[in-house]
């Protein structure tokens, strides 16, 4: 099981800059999604921010399914400045990868529970670490795409863009840097030093926006 928990209202408000398109995923039964709270929050958000559309769908972690589900909304998505995804970490990363030139943000943190972990085709991975960093890193997870799970930037171990630990693997932080460069959002990386919180599950301890 996974639990997705909403980030704070202030955080989500600050992310919803300009025309904002929202995606909710109510996919697998193994994921507990805070449906009611999300609906309430998005309703409130619609009053203060420019929410152009809210789409609720399923299995956005599957790239083909995602493409199909978003197809009829692509005009609105193209027009939007920001896309906020309410799903587990895999769903957010899949949307960020698909909408490569959009600012895609996470509205949730993902926590693990014992049991089945939901249906994902594993093109990207979510470590369910409980403090989602995807909003700082252009939708590419530093925990699963970096061999050292570094959260404060690249180490000195990348050669020709590949990781020193696994030469078949691209350096996650180089991917993050290039993605943010493309989105013109490199300033996002200038945050205060991040210290991971291993004391889980404890949602209140998280400081990741």
């Amino acid at each position, binding site marked *: 099981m996974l639990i997705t928990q909403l980030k704070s209202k202030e955080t989500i408000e600050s992310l919803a800059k300009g025309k904002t398109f929202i995606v909710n995923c109510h996919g697998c039964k193994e994921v507990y999604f805070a449906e009611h709270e999300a609906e309430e929050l998005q309703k409130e958000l619609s009053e203060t921010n420019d929410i152009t559309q809210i789409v609720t769908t399923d299995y956005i972690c599957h790239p083909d399914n995602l493409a199909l589900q978003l197809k009829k909304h692509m005009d609105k998505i193209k027009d939007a400045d920001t896309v906020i995804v309410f799903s587990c970490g895999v769903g957010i990363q899949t949307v960020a990868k698909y909408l490569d030139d959009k600012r895609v943000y996470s509205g949730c943190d993902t926590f693990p529970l014992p049991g089945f972990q939901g249906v994902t085709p594993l093109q990207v991975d979510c470590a369910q670490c409980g403090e989602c960093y995807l909003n700082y890193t252009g939708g590419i997870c530093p925990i699963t795409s970096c061999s050292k799970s570094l959260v*404060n930037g690249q*180490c000195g171990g*990348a*050669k020709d863009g590949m990781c*020193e*630990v696994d030469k078949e693997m691209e350096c996650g932080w180089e991917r993050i840097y290039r993605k943010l460069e493309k989105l013109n959002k490199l300033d996002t*990386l200038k945050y205060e*030093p991040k*210290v991971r919180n291993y004391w889980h599950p404890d949602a209140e301890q998280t400081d990741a926006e």
Partner: protein
Amino acid sequence: MRLTEFFDRGEFVVTAEVGPPKGFHIEHLVEEANEFLKGRVHAVNVTDNQSSVMRLGSLATCKVLKDNGLNTIFQVTCRDRNRIALQSDILSAALLGIDNLLLLTGDHTTLGDHPQAKPVFDLDSVSLTHAVKRMEEGFDIAGNAIDGEFPKFSKGAVVSPCSDSVDAQLAKMEQKVKAGVEYFQTQGVYEPEKFIKFMDKAKQFGVPVQLGIIIPKNVGMVRYMNANVAGVHVPDDMIEELKADKEKTKAGITGVEISARIIKECKDYCQGVHIMALGWESKIPAILDQAGL
């Protein structure tokens, strides 16, 4: 003595690196440091299980070198210790009067001689710097008060100026400066023009940078580095230079010449030099002489 005091005086700061042995007898290391480094360098770096190979500890070695009259830099990596052990060792350094730190994330465990070991990386170079800064302000990283006098260090870090991801390196460098890093030592440089270009961008941070020199020993070593060591690239003409006169290269003369030449070309663009001799500590005085230091 803190390295920042030398930088503040405007001195061109020279440091050299020594690696502790896999064993607890360090007479040879101390002898070499006394003979070749004392009086020639501002401080000696002591590596922390370099390349993830298990060795004698950096802190204990620093203490012995200090007792022998050498100024030392305690290298601390995040690979083998969590935040509790790291902060504890840093307090131990303060107790022993070791007041220079070089704070690193560290190589991954799989690159060393214990590939089965658990890689820790609870903190990284940036958050470790933040932790040290907090301790200097009287608190540990969890916010608990430190008893008595607060420790005070010169906090150093590394950067890789000839990396093929130099922009990402500069972004990380900026984060390190923001976290409290006061001086940088670089990865080995063989391409002065790349280093000078890097310094043109790095100088905006206003933090002193020491040019990194790895003495090139022979063709095999530089080819190995080109294939395997991140951020290091030895150009073809330098490889030819090492090939040209095998006896001269074997005697270390070519490596000394190349090292001194790189220092001379880069000297005006940086605030010091850091020499990684990898066992060739005996060549350091000749390099410094030829570079006019």
